[in-house]
């Protein structure tokens, strides 16, 4: 199945000024994308400037302040060990977003070459690879990650590795679609006839056309990865204490929900905002990069 996300604006490796500025203009006028982008930038700021922004040390607890309600001293309250919830949320961005980025990066590093190669080779190689993708695509990555964690133990590293591998089909499929279409294009045929090396064809024709679909899929995959990582940490299978993490905090918050609901609410809302940001950005980018889909 072809990806069909090709517009005149996305074709051709060279980025002429008009293409880029047209893209920016379209982006700016898409409110979804702008809000999403705003949230993403906000999260990135939290990651980079955490030490400056966090009012307290996220790992230092003042026991007598256990489960303190939100106040001037503890803006979002304190957890069971007397640690500042706001600071822990800020530092938690690093594990959440960092983990999600690693997942998507791994899936791309493996998936992009794999997709191109499979489509390019064609024949039975392509058949086998597509079959494997079909198998993995159907099954929710989270459930297979369970098996990995059961085998190798709970840790952020194991979670990221297993999710990274399991997300490969999402990217690879799209890339494969693009490659298949490009293969049939006249100028590819021409290039091959003229004896251009494969690598040149790939780099000049195929890869550039992959950029926009990969960007869209990556943004959405980041949203899914954030959710999956949060879910695994919530179940106690991911990030281990005392490292601050939104999923962990949500789980702890649930145990004290009756007496100190602020912890669970803060952690949950944080996850919501982050995932929303990437969903909006991904949606917006898809609108911008594929006007066909945008006419909804």
């Amino acid at each position, binding site marked *: *199945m072809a*990806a*069909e996300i090709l517009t005149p604006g996305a074709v051709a490796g060279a980025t002429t000024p008009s293409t880029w500025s047209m893209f920016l203009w379209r982006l700016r006028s898409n409110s979804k994308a702008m809000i999403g982008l705003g949230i993403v930038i906000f999260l990135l700021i939290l990651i980079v400037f955490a030490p400056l922004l966090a009012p307290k040390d996220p*790992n*230092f*607890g003042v*026991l*007598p302040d*256990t*489960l303190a309600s939100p106040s001037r001293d503890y803006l979002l309250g304190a957890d*069971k*060990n*007397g640690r500042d919830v706001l600071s822990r949320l800020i530092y938690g961005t690093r594990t959440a977003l960092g983990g999600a980025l690693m997942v998507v990066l791994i899936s791309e590093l493996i998936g992009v070459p794999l997709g191109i190669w499979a489509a390019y080779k064609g024949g039975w190689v392509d058949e086998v690879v597509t079959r494997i993708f079909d198998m993995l*695509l*159907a099954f929710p990555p989270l459930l297979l990650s369970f098996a990995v964690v059961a085998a190798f133990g709970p840790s952020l590293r194991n979670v990221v590795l297993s999710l990274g591998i399991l997300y490969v089909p*999402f990217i690879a*499929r799209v890339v494969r679609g693009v490659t298949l279409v490009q293969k049939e294009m006249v100028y590819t045929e021409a290039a091959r006839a003229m004896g251009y090396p494969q690598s040149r064809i790939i780099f000049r024709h195929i890869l550039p056309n992959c950029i926009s679909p990969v960007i*869209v*899929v990556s943004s*959405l*995959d980041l949203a*899914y990865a954030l959710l999956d990582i949060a879910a695994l940490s919530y179940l*106690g299978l991911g990030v*281990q*204490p*005392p490292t601050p993490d939104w999923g962990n905090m949500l789980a*702890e918050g*649930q*145990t*004290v*929900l*009756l*007496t*100190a609901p602020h912890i669970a609410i803060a952690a949950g809302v944080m996850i919501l905002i982050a995932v929303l940001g990437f969903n909006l950005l991904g949606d917006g980018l*898809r609108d911008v990069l594929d006007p066909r*889909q945008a006419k909804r």
Partner: protein
Amino acid sequence: MTENEAGQQFDARMREYLQGLREQAMSRRGLFKLSAAAVGATALAGAVPYVMPGVSVLAQDDTTVTLGLESDLRGVEPALGYDFTANPVICNITEGLMALDKDSKIYPLLAETFENPDAQTFIYNLRAGVKFHDGTDVTVADAIASIERVRSEAIASPMAWMFDNVESIAETAPMQLTIKLKIPSASFTYVMATTAGHVMPKSLIDANPDLPTQEPIGTGPYKFVKWEAGSQVELEKNEAYWQTGKPYFQKAIFKIVPDGTTRVAGLKTGDLTIVRDIPADQLEIVRGMAEITLQEVIGFSSNQIFMVNNAAPFDDINVRKAVSMAINYDEIMTNLVKDTGVRSISSTVPSTMPGSAEAELTPVPYDVEAAKAALAASSQPNGFKTTLTVDSESGQRVAEAQAIQQMLAVIGVEVEINKIPQPDRITALQTGDYEGMIFHEWGADFPDANGMLLPLFHSRSVPPQNNGSFYNNPAVDALLDGADAEVDETARFAKLIEAQKLIAADMPIIWLDHFKWFLAVKQGLGGYSIGPLFYWDSFLRDLAPVQA
């Protein structure tokens, strides 16, 4: 599948379909059939469980008592009944030759009379006419078979060691069982009051030689009906119970409710009649409930952290001293433990147990400067890294672990927290597969101070048993062995107190607290008060509404 994919796939299929539509007529009937089928299928999915067997439609009523358990059971076999969750269930089904009352005094139960002519001979005269739930009579053969089951390798009972000292078990007269020991023991008298002394029919035991039974039969006030793993255990009244007029309730349901807040909520709504395990931060709420009475008692209990004494760095007493003094015990007690326990005073034996040395000992001081000095004088002057293993299910313990981690960082000791599920932590303790520090909870098997010492500090009690710190002090060994063989109480206590002083000086473990046991019971019910050894008790035998 991502939404993106879904969108694209629908696009393709949609287009194809719409093209097809122009060429062919689609009958309206077909569509209705289809949507009806779809709706019907979902309705069916929702309805199927209602007609599936095992779903009871019985509502809650006054003749049913519902208890809330904090986790699923490991099993329902008495020979394996050695934990705080399974035992309250098992002890209503099977009974032992002896029993303990709420003041931990022993009295005969299935035995009618009990004689202890000398320190090594125990004679039990069984009650006549007591029947098992299956209608058969209780005989000495059943009692002997039950004891042998605890000792059998296949069953691997954690109480097998209680019979290590036994020389012979025999039926010495009709309905009379005599047990002879190799050497005198002050604690053996209590064994038949534990689940190790519970009696099941020989026929049932013979039918399940290698695996624990999933359907126990006993003489208790309640019969086993079924265990829906992960959900609940159901018991029903034994109409032919040998203590006439008991029990009161027709049905007993033990619901498995792992979330503490939910258990408390269940008390409020009346869904739960009795709850034992209440999270520390909700004690106040439960105390404030008008519809609930909250009982509490300090357990024969100890919560501590083992340090591995037979390997670096904790083989050096200065290191142990440093770590012990760097912990702010008051802060932990006030803010985390709160009202659920009392601080241990350098002993695992609470002051409520006769033979405790706590009156003569001093608590470990919180003194960061002294801690740093001790560390500087030790084999690790520059600090070191270590691990602390803790149960993942317990919010309180995890919080304690993190607090300790923070406190030890101050003196240069870097602690990595290893959070694992409780069964795994217990397995790790049994196999000795841990390093550094590990949490441990202990409740005495017997109302005897030695029960808090011998299993934890005798050199032969190392893993797979419970001397998790690998403490080895021959002088202490001699005192503990001597105490067990000492039938004279004063002499025994003297030896135990001496042993506790030696242990306190060696600081092999970090003493935390003696935790309390709580029991929240619906207002208006009486007949049972929780005692320190509740895990050998039947809650429900005497439980009934209090006459006004």
